[in-house]
């Protein structure tokens, strides 16, 4: 306890006033003339009652009131509180950003980080308040601004390391948002992390205002050694009607030490299949290929585990395998030429992702059942197949099938099926005179051409076009390619759930030489994939991804999702909004079941792995991040916590104890007045 104006304490001498009032004041209130005090003088004065204090309570009240008022004038304040306040220059609003990304699971990083968070909480003043934000790829306000240190520590104790990747941007933005709403003047952010370099790209648009400060607590270890399995690849081969898979695991040594004879184990459906030994140079990668195994069925769970180190999470890699189903494509041509569909069939015969199963038939002979169970149909320079008439082909498309119309001399389209063709075909246009035509415009935003978007990803201009069919597309049709003269080279129309693309020149060597150009094969594959709605089977996902399960299942039934930690999430199938979305926040295998399914039925499995970037533990300089956020170098956490100079006047003004003392003193005086008045009514004197 200190006093701003201790000189006023002299006023404590006024404590004698109530006593004097008790003893003397009332006697001297007026002077009474008396003939002689001869007898009064004889009475022994010691026995006179004025020496006695009869109402101790009243005396104490008066003395306390005087003491309180004098103390109020001397402006007291608590030195300890002043120091505590000086740490922040007053009440602070603190946002504790606690990194819970997967990399914090390295060694004792998480323990140290929580200790640091608890240290910050314990260092709070009584008026300070703090918000706990746990962050990885995203940031979440775990504990809203509160002064309750117990609750804050409880939240820190309950926090666990997650599987997410590190991103500082969202966390810092959230902190800035929280602090900008704070009514307190002192606003601080404490960032507790291992400061992975990969978490900060420098392009995050986070900027703290001047009044906000950021301090950092780094728990990064100086010499980290980390072995990771960042990916696996699968080699698929067909063998006697079955698919055989060769798993190749990539290994990455992020440490400075060479790792020798690291055991790498492949586990399939819970059974260890094979263990290989690998030696990996420091800061280098290696791979291990396991022996092929036969894929028995869908949803085969696999795992590759390599060695052990302080961060075991990234030593394991999960995947789910399923047999690859070929995409069935029917090619219908005129049948009047041999090898009319040679280029197309040969192109579609190549490749495994996916593999295409093609059947070539002539339009005259094709029957209505030929369209059944086809993913896509290619009408290759032929008339409209009679079997497709009567709405058969249209219904096929409407159900989700794909139709590629390769227009040539023989292509004709009945008026009754005009709604199926994207536009109206016109007469052939001859470009043999002079310079031949070429593809002048491609809509790279279209999925077919998206893969060619990047430079040197296919030169369509190398293909020469000598003839093409004029096409007058409808306004609703999407033109996805044009020739150099502006004529439509390809247009798309969506019919029902299916897609129809018309290609206005041939896909062989009759009207164009595109069939011999390098882009032919990927172009045909892209067209076939797009029209057949091919989606490659995903063997694993990365933590943080969001899946639309409803879209994957192509149905609207209810689902139950079991997370790797055993949590069950019910997802209604016919809901609105985000019901079908699932954020993959844990590493491991997610199971998607249908309610009521028997336990023997193998559930759909989703393998989820860490972001490979989390394995990169190299740390950045926290000051660099602070400088980027605040625009200037900021003291470290220790310096930031150092007491700032606060004047005694400021401390006293903030505490304002005098006001309470004065009020209490006046209140006591009021009480004393009431009591003494009541007593004085009963007694002759006090």
């Amino acid at each position, binding site marked *: 306890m200190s006093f701003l104006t201790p000189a006023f304490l002299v006023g404590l001498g006024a404590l004698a006033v109530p006593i004097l009032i008790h003893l*003397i004041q*009332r*006697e*001297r*209130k*007026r*002077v*009474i*003339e*008396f*003939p*002689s*005090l*001869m*007898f*009064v*003088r*004889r*009475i022994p004065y010691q*026995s*006179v*009652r*004025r020496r006695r204090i009869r109402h101790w309570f009243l005396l104490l009240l008066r003395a306390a009131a005087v003491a309180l008022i004098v103390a109020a004038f001397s402006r007291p304040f608590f030195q300890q509180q002043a120091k505590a306040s000086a740490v922040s220059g007053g009440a602070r609003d603190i946002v504790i950003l606690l990194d819970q990304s997967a990399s914090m699971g390295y060694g004792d990083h998480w323990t140290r980080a929580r200790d640091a968070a608890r240290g910050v909480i314990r260092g709070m003043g009584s008026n300070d308040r703090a918000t706990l934000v746990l962050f990885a790829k995203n940031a979440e306000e775990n504990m809203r601004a509160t002064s309750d240190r117990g609750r804050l520590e409880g939240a820190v104790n309950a926090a666990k390391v997650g599987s997410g990747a590190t991103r500082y941007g969202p966390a810092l933005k959230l902190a800035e948002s929280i602090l900008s709403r704070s009514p307190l003047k002192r606003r601080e952010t404490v960032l507790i992390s291992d400061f992975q370099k990969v978490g900060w790209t420098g392009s995050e648009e986070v900027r703290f205002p001047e009044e906000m400060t950021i301090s950092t607590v780094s728990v990064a270890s100086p010499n980290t050694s980390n072995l990771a399995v960042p990916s696996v690849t699968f080699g698929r081969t067909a063998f006697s009607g079955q698919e055989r898979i060769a798993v190749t695991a990539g290994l990455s040594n992020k440490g400075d030490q060479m790792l020798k004879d690291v055991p790498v184990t492949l586990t399939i459906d819970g059974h260890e299949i094979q263990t290989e030994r690998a030696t990996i140079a420091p800061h280098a990668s290696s791979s291990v290929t396991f022996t092929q195994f036969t894929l028995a069925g869908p949803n085969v769970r696999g795992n590759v585990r390599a060695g052990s180190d302080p961060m075991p999470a990234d030593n394991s890699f999960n995947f789910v395998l399923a047999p690859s189903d070929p995409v069935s494509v029917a090619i219908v041509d005129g049948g009047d030429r041999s090898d009319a569909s040679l280029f197309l069939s040969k192109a579609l015969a190549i490749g495994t992702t996916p593999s295409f199963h093609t059947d070539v038939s002539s339009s005259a002979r094709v029957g209505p059942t030929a369209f059944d169970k086809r993913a896509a149909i290619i009408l290759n320079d032929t008339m409209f197949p009679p079997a497709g008439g009567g709405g058969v082909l249209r219904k096929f498309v409407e159900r989700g099938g794909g139709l590629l119309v390769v227009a040539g001399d023989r292509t004709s389209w009945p008026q009754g099926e005009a709604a199926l063709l994207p536009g109206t075909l016109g007469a052939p246009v001859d470009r043999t005179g002079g310079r031949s035509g070429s593809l002048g415009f491609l809509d790279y935003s279209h999925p077919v051409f998206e893969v060619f978007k990047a430079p040197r990803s296919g030169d369509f201009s190398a293909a020469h076009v000598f003839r093409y069919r004029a096409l007058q597309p409808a306004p609703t049709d999407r033109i996805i390619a044009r020739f150099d003269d502006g004529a439509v080279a390809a247009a798309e129309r969506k019919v029902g759930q299916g897609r129809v693309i018309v290609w206005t020149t041939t896909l062989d060597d009759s009207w164009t030489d595109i069939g011999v150009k390098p882009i032919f094969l990927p172009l045909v594959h892209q067209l076939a994939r797009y029209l057949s709605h091919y989606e490659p089977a995903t063997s694993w996902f990365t933590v943080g991804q969001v899946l639309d399960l409803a879209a994957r299942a192509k149905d609207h039934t209810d689902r139950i999702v079991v997370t790797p930690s055993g949590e069950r999430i019910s997802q209604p199938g016919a809901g609105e909004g985000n019901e079908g979305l699932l954020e993959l926040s844990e590493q491991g295998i997610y199971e998607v079941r249908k309610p009521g399914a028997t336990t023997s039925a193998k559930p759909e499995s989703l393998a989820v792995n860490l972001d490979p970037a989390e394995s990169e533990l190299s740390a950045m300089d926290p000051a660099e991040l602070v400088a980027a956020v605040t625009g200037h170098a900021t003291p470290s956490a220790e310096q930031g916590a150092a007491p700032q100079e606060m004047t005694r006047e400021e401390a006293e003004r903030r505490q304002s104890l005098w006001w309470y003392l004065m009020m209490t003193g006046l209140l006591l005086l009021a009480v004393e007045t009431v009591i003494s008045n009541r007593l004085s009514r009963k007694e*002759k*004197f006090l």
Partner: protein
Amino acid sequence: MEQHAIPGARFVDPKVLSRIGNLELLARTVVEGFINGMHRAPYFGASIDFAEHRGYVAGDDIRRVDWRLFARTDRYYVKQYEADTNTNLSVLLDISRSMKFASKGIAKLDYGCYIGACLAYLAQRQRDRVGAITFDNDIVTHIPPSAKHFNVVLHTLDRARPERPGNLSVPLNKMAEHFKRRGILVLISDFYEEPEAILEAIKPLRFLGNDLIVFHVLDPAEIDFGYDEASSFEDLESGEQIPVVPESLAAEYRSMIRAHIDSLTTKFSEHRIDYTMVNTAEPLDRALFSYLSSRERLMRVR
């Protein structure tokens, strides 16, 4: 008897008397009322009352021989009569500062003046010679007893002002030198001295066989000490102030003043001095009775 006398005036509250303003009128009012209220007035008018016979001795006035008795007994007897003598009345009034005290009604000095005036009036009617002496710590005024000094006495009493502290021994010693003839001395004071000192002081007054009547004038507040609030009490004599809590003092004070009065009563009676404590809140009759009793004794002179 005067017809204008007011019956019962002796019982008039001294406060009412104080409004009269004229001492003579006041004295007459009181005394006439006092006398009229008596059943008999044996002390006045009988100037020659037969007392007894005694044998003639040479030198006796033959005019006082009872010849009728000589005729029956053939012996000479002389008649003896109650003497109707004139005497001196001196009013000795203490005018020290303590006498100006008045709690509610009239001041002790005024009351003393009334007593003095009334007694002077009585004496004058009796054709006694009246004189007066006022004193504090010394003699202030001295009016020798004389049949013509009644008005002067009243004037002196009326003019008396308490200005100085009092003391009995010095002025009373001086007074004793002035009294050449036996008489009645009426001492009016509040006697704020030790009883022994008081007696010592008044001894000289009795040397000539003076008949001393003492009036101890006290205010009711001096007797009852009826104060409520703690206050500072100032001694009128010395000016000294003492903080006093009456509630705690009163009982003790009352017992002390009672003891003082009792002591004075005892000691005065032991010395055959008429002592009367008068309360200024009470009518004057007690004082007059006291005087008359004393005067009766003095009148029996043969």
